[in-house]
């Protein structure tokens, strides 16, 4: 049972940072709505406010970790150029996708969109975390700020969702491979 170093990094980037961020998004939206809407919830405690602060900071860290690992660890392997005349493109995912009309769209639409739109998630959630930490339960008295915070949170979910969907599909059609092989478990002959 083995995994390559590049595949492991892709797993950490996609399922670790990105997947956890997506899972946290719905919780953040509900939490922010309940916390900042006066009619939706009873008075919150300082403990709940503290938990929400840590939750949002963790989300911001996950979002930045996802885009930075994607751009500076995975993406260089994805876009690496094959040597002239190379026939086997399995180590060059971008070129592998572009070599067939059936898969070229996963690069020209999927990756081209994903590589830019994904950055809206950390920018948005960093702003949301800052505004929540600055105002806390006082956001209930700032209806317009509250609305913007919720819309930016939703936008970060959409951006991360687009990136996650295309990331999973691209990895399905042309996985990032290569690097050192890590043995997870030694098989036994039966």
């Amino acid at each position: 049972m083995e995994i390559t170093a590049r595949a492991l990094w892709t797993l950490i980037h996609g399922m670790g940072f990105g997947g956890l961020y997506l899972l946290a998004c719905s919780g953040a939206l509900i939490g922010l709505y309940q916390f900042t809407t006066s009619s939706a919830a009873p008075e919150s405690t300082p403990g709940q406010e503290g938990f929400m602060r840590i939750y949002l900071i963790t989300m911001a860290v996950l979002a930045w970790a996802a885009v930075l690992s994607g751009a500076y660890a995975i993406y260089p392997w994805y876009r690496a150029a094959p040597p002239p005349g190379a026939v086997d493109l399995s180590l060059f995912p971008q070129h592998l996708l572009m070599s067939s009309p059936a898969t070229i769209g996963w690069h020209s639409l999927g990756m081209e969109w994903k590589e830019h739109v994904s950055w809206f998630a950390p920018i948005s959630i960093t702003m949301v975390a800052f505004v929540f930490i600055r105002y806390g339960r006082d956001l209930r008295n700032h209806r317009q700020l509250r609305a913007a915070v919720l819309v930016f949170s939703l936008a970060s979910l959409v951006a991360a969702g687009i990136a996650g969907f295309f990331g999973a599909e691209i990895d399905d059609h042309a996985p990032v491979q290569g690097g050192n092989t890590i043995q997870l478990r030694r098989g036994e002959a039966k």
Partner: protein
Amino acid sequence: MTNGSGAAAIFAAGVGCFVLAVLAILADKSALIQRSLVFYKPTGPLSGVTTVAILVWLVTWAILEWSWRKKTLPAGHINAIALALLVLSLILTFPPVGDLF
């Protein structure tokens, strides 16, 4: 508490997203801009597009925070512009739309 600090953060986030979308299109259309945005060769122009956008976002945020933090502003107008920039950014990064330019 005044709303200036929150409005500054929200507006700057909209600006940051919009600058990223515009730079992505410019890097796609101009070979000169594309080359000048290669800050880290293995990542290509994406490194420059995102680094410049993040710097613009943070500098805008810092300036607005410094100027607005003690003020109560018409947050409705500021949020409307920020949200319009965010929606435009989402649309502009969609490759078929970017290819129209």
